[in-house]
């Protein structure tokens, strides 16, 4: 049934023939092409689809088209005319309030509804009004600052680009709704694809004949099965390609892909597993590491004895001897859960055949790895695949694995039409990778002076049904398990076990956040035993330039943990005093305050593997500088940072830069956006490319190294002392890309493979940080409110300080979620109301202290910060809970009922 809908959208009257029950968000996106309104969940949990209806903010995903009749709707596209920014949007840009940008339209509309009724809101009022929109990138602080500063002035930015908080070049597109994410630019004539997935964690699969269903179902073109996939395996490592694109004889987790329907949207939506000849016979599932190791446990993969995927080890010195002679020993066992990335943009994309090639437009963190994987699944050469990444609405590691790409490529090669696929939120959550749950046992030993003599750790990780990034976690954790400290004797083992759970993959920190919970509890234990201040014991042991790491690597420079701790020290003293005063002042109160500290280190880039990036830059006849940038910006800011670095290397302003991002036909391989590597690795490549471009120009102008460049339209002025040479760029011969001068740069950070004892140089540089937390615990309810985080991060050099702050604040938000609320349980938390991530009201005030201990290898001294923001947060919060309550936290997340149980246990013990 279709009716005419009359309504006003962004000031314009429309009359549309739509089914009245259609979600308004689909009307806006599909009928009016207003794709600025995003779909994050279709369930009112995330607020990404927030629009104004008669001035009131409303989720367009829960509004029936019929209910919009006669009403006035405003979407993000209606905030300002002709691509301009209104004052609110300008404030978002100025404050760096948009990272990946997928929540920005919803945030802007929610803020607009507030500002219509209250032009001078308080912070609390902003939080109430924006409380219905989730952001996974920013930690919300810059969003609040932006809304409180509508109409404020912009600081003037002059001089060098590096070190300046330049606004994002892709910011305006994200804030006006113009930016195209995975689901936003799908051709109207495409076929749609939907994957049907296993509701069971482990089952045998029998596939029947689908001919009847296809004939009987109008609009259904095909049911794709594993037989349609040329090479039905994918996975991150060449040796770890163990995940089928579509199931063959069994499924190994709830969410495993069975078959794929291709046809019209209506046809594929109407069919379910029950309508198809697919028989699942349930088998006993392996849940948790203990079950995976158990004698007689079902084996998930052939040749993987005891379900062990991989074991990594670091063994330095003589732990046995060290323990014998140490004066203090502490030990513990720690447990963490599956954690969901919860990027607000679900996986989406489309593909088409172009001649004998396939062209893939999908949301991703890595164009080059996607290309390689697609080529392998199709069994074609790399030159037959072109990947053009869309904007990415958040990744955090979860979009490093392919999702829609392999099956879309297969379908696109088969049909003469483009084929598209968008995951719904529950499908995204059920099928995608997770943070590895960890079971960690450790023992740290020290002298009576508090100096660490040995660190032992065994970390068992639940790697789920398939290998994914399991090997990375098992490799990275042993390197980091002894913490950011100098420890002469270290033995750390990391193991990853297969289970019938979602594949655990890459998630901001690759296992290091879990390990940090353990090593930081050890430091607190030691401080308690020895009567030392918790910050002091960390400073005493902090690894410094000249010290050897657990892998025997001598740190040459840029080891800024002592500087981070020094910067925190005055805040630390104050938070501790405040907590004591508060608790003494209110001895009967049910709330207790506490302060805690966490320290971390993090190797930048791949672990002991080659890790190269190539960047190209050119200047065109019209004076445009083009960065051919293979690095995918997933919100972390490489589209800003890389031009900034390159600009200063060339000696021309960053504003003149444009870029092509990730298109594998037009850019060189810059590697994945992962492991906090793009600023350090691709940044260095961008610096080299800029220098090469500069030299090409200087050679042409016959000018010396110190010459000054200036661009005036298509005239490039080269001033070398007294001599001024004007180059008319338009008059020079251009290459196929329209470039008249070019430069290329390549960087592969120097590392070595690790030997049998895990000794070697796994990373060229490390990020360091420490954070302190102030919390308030309700002793009767077990709830924890984080009041404040002060974070000190050694980033080498902050290329863009505002974006550095943004990365750290966003990391803190995810760390807070990991500590206090996030726990993914298959079948139970496959949506964003049962799976809780922090809202705008859960975030504390965050103060970011940027420490710059330059890294000689990095571009202008910079290293990465993407992951370090998250790592020390949970340890700091747990330390603060312990300070407040006496409860030594050994389990993440510390949900209210768990903390309350621990508090009761202590009260009984004392009473």
């Amino acid at each position: 049934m279709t009716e005419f809908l009359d309504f006003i959208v962004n000031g314009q009257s429309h009359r549309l023939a739509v089914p009245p029950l259609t979600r308004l968000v689909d009307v806006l996106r599909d009928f009016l092409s207003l794709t600025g309104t995003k779909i994050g969940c279709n369930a009112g949990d995330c607020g990404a689809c927030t629009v104004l209806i008669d001035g009131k903010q409303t989720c367009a995903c829960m509004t029936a088209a019929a209910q919009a009749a006669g009403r006035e709707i405003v979407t993000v596209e209606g905030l300002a005319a002709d691509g301009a920014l209104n004052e609110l949007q300008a404030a978002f840009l100025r404050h760096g309030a948009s990272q990946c940008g997928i929540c920005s339209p919803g945030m802007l509309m929610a803020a607009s509804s507030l500002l219509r009724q209250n032009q001078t809101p308080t912070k609390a009022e902003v939080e109430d009004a924006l409380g219905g929109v989730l952001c996974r990138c920013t930690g919300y602080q810059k969003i609040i600052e932006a809304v409180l500063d509508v109409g404020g002035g912009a600081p003037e930015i002059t001089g060098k680009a590096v070190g300046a908080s330049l606004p994002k070049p892709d910011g305006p597109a994200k804030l006006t709704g113009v930016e195209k994410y995975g689901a936003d630019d799908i051709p109207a004539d495409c076929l749609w694809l939907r994957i049907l997935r296993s509701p069971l964690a482990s089952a045998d699969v029998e596939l029947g004949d689908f001919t009847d269903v296809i004939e009987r179902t109008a609009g259904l073109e095909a049911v794709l099965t594993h037989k349609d996939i040329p090479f039905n395996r994918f996975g991150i490592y060449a040796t770890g390609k163990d995940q089928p694109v579509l199931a063959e004889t069994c499924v190994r987790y709830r969410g495993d892909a069975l078959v794929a329907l291709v046809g019209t949207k209506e046809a594929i939506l109407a069919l379910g597993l029950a309508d198809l000849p697919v028989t699942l016979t349930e088998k006993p599932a392996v849940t948790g590491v203990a079950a995976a190791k158990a004698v007689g446990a079902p084996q998930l993969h052939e040749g993987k004895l005891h379900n062990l995927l991989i074991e990594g080890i670091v063994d330095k010195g003589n732990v046995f001897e060290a323990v014998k002679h140490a004066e203090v020993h502490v030990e513990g066992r720690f447990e963490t859960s599956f954690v969901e990335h919860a990027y607000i943009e679900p996986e989406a994309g489309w593909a088409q055949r172009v001649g004998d090639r396939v062209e893939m437009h999908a949301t991703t963190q890595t164009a080059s790895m996607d290309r390689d994987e697609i080529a392998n699944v199709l069994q074609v050469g790399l030159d037959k695949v072109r990947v053009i990444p869309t904007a990415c609405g958040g990744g955090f590691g979860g979009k490093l694995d392919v999702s829609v790409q392999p099956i879309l490529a297969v379908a696109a090669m088969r049909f003469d039409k483009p084929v598209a696929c968008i995951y719904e939120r529950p499908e995204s959550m059920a099928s995608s990778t997770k943070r590895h749950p960890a079971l960690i046992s450790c023992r740290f030993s020290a002298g009576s002076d508090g100096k660490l003599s040995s660190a032992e750790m065994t970390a068992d990780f639940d790697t789920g049904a398939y290998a994914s990034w399991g090997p990375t976690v098992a490799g990275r954790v042993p390197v980091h398990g002894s913490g950011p400290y100098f420890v002469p004797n270290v033995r750390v083992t990391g193991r990853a076990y297969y289970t019938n759970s979602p594949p655990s993959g890459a998630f901001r920190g690759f296992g290091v956040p879990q390990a940090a919970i353990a090593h930081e509890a050890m430091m607190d234990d030691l401080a308690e035993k020895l009567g030392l201040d918790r910050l002091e014991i960390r400073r005493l042991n902090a690894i410094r330039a000249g010290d050897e790491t657990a892998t025997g690597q001598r740190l040459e420079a840029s080891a800024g943990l002592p500087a981070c701790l020094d910067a925190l020290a005055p805040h630390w003293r104050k938070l501790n005093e405040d907590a004591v005063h508060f608790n003494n002042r209110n001895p009967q109160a049910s709330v207790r305050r506490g302060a805690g500290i966490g320290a971390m280190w993090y190797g930048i880039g791949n672990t002991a593997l080659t890790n190269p990036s190539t960047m190209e830059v050119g200047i065109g006849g019209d004076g445009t500088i083009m960065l051919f940038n293979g690095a995918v910006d997933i919100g972390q800011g490489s589209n800003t940072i890389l031009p900034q670095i390159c600009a200063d290397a060339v000696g021309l302003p960053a504003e003149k830069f444009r870029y092509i991002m990730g298109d594998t036909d037009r850019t060189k391989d810059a590697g994945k956006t992962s492991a906090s590597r793009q600023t350090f690795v691709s940044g260095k490549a961008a610096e080299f490319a800029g220098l090469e471009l500069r030299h090409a120009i200087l050679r042409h102008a016959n000018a010396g190294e110190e010459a000054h460049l200036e661009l005036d339209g298509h005239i490039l002025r080269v001033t070398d002392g007294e001599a001024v040479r004007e180059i008319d760029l338009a008059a020079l011969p251009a290459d196929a890309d329209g470039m008249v001068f070019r430069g290329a740069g390549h960087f592969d950070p120097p590392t070595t493979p690790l030997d049998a004892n895990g000794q070697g140089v796994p990373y060229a540089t490390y990020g360091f940080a420490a954070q302190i937390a102030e919390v308030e615990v309700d002793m009767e309810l077990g709830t924890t409110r984080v009041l404040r985080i002060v974070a000190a991060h050694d980033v080498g050099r902050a290329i863009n300080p505002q974006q550095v702050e943004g990365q750290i604040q966003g990391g803190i938000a995810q760390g807070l979620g990991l500590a206090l609320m996030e726990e993914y349980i298959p079948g139970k938390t496959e949506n964003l109301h049962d799976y809780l991530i922090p809202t705008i009201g859960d975030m504390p005030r965050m103060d970011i202290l940027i420490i710059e201990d330059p890294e000689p290898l990095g571009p202008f001294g910079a290293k990465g910060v993407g992951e370090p923001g998250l790592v020390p947060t949970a340890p700091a919060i747990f330390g603060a809970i312990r300070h407040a309550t006496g409860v030594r936290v050994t389990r993440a997340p510390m949900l209210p009922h768990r903390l309350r149980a621990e508090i009761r246990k202590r009260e009984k013990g004392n009473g």
Partner: protein
Amino acid sequence: MGSYYRPTNMTDLQAALRSGPVHILAGGTDFYPARVGRPLIEDILDLTAVPELCGIEETAWSWRIGATTTWTDIIRADLPPLYEGLKAAAREVGGWQVQNAGTIGGNLCNASPAADGVPALLSLGAEVELLDSEKRELIDLTDFILGNRKTRLQPGQVLTAIVIPKPRAATVRSVFLKLGARKYLVISLVMVAIVLETDKDDRIIACRVAVGACSEVAMRLGALEEVLLGEKRSSELQDLVTRAHIAPLTPIDDIRASKAYRLDAALTVIRRALAQIGSLS
């Protein structure tokens, strides 16, 4: 694809109820989330264009809240202190987006054990008005919600209004407290709503204490109410509640909290709600 009917007056609505089973739609905030990734094929009767179903009306003996009155309507309405608890509950429903669309009638018909509106309405002694093609009937809210996602609503029947009797006493106070694992957009672990009616000496002459998310259907704690009757209002009311008073609660163990925790927390939240209402000016 199903039919879609959106009557604009009561006569048409009642006629529609005669014509066969339909799915009733109001704000959509429960309807759409239950259909993520599924085709929308239901025959729909949309209540939101019937003016009589929306708004709050005061009569001599009661208030009548139309079924499609939104949470925002309730928050913004000019109502006596009796409604502070309901307003507080309304502010806890989702974000502003859900408060702008979600309706009080829909909240009851959806019958979630964690429905934010139910404890507050129980504490108000609410009745619900049901309409079918023949007649209207008024039943007690406690008789309307039968279980998790189960109500007494029959096919061909709609909930048209919530009727709240006016209290006998001149002085009435109400509170609502919600415990969740995060600040916004959170499903309750425990909810407590209390209404106290007091005489000129500030003695309690009537009271209703309701707890949500701790049993399949939110419920009143009769034993506690009896103990409170006749007491003088003060923050010390909190000392009157005992474990025995919450014995009727039957919370479950689930991903959000353990059963033991919910009972323990319910006791605490009840105490705090009593302390709060006892010290209101």
